[in-house]
């Protein structure tokens, strides 16, 4: 199982702070995004395609080809704007 979390504008657009995904063949962030985009008719597809995204696996920023394994926390968020 993978824990997926969303922040800021992404969290609001998904109307959800996150979800859990059964892993099976998912081995990378890119593969996870494809799974999340599958249920078309949901907002996932368009948002992932449209928003400028950053990804962190277990609180470390990674590329979209970053590896994912069972039990990971994968966070999607827009570029940061603190300070």
């Amino acid at each position, binding site marked *: 199982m993978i824990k997926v979390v969303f922040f800021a504008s992404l969290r609001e657009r998904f109307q959800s702070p996150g979800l859990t995904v059964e892993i099976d063949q998912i081995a990378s962030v890119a593969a996870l995004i494809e799974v999340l985009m599958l249920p078309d008719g949901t907002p996932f597809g368009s948002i992932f395609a449209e928003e400028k995204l950053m990804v962190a696996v277990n609180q470390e920023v990674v590329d979209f080809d970053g590896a994912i394994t069972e039990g990971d*926390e994968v966070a999607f968020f*827009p570029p940061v704007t*603190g*300070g």
Partner: protein
Amino acid sequence: MYIRIRVQEIGFSLDEAFQELRRASNSVGAVCTFTGLVRDFNDDAEVTGLFLEHYPEMTEKQLARIVDDACQRWQLMGVSVIHRIGALLPGDEIVLVAVAAGHRGEAFSACEFIMDYLKTQATFWKKEVAADGERWLTMRESDITAADRWQS
């Protein structure tokens, strides 16, 4: 070496952070501080408030890494970083970075370095509440440029 990193809803005291840092070592000769405040306007829309969200498990980790990078680059005696989250009003303080060192060059550089990286790497997001509605802020190009110049 005194290091303190805080992410909190409540306001903070610049003076308290300064008093802690000046005592970090009796060879502190320079303390540089930066305080970021909520301005009452941003790109001409009248800002009535700000909401700050963050990624709890990640933020402190990122801030600690930025501070650690600064300690590798300059000889520092103390660093304090405080970042607020939650609902803020115009004039409220958002962020404080304070650096103590032997000499001023190190204190200034490290303080600006930490702010520049905090702006581009720490997982905070600002939503502006203005008269004409709410909007999530987007990263400024100038912030990316500011952080990039430390890589040379």
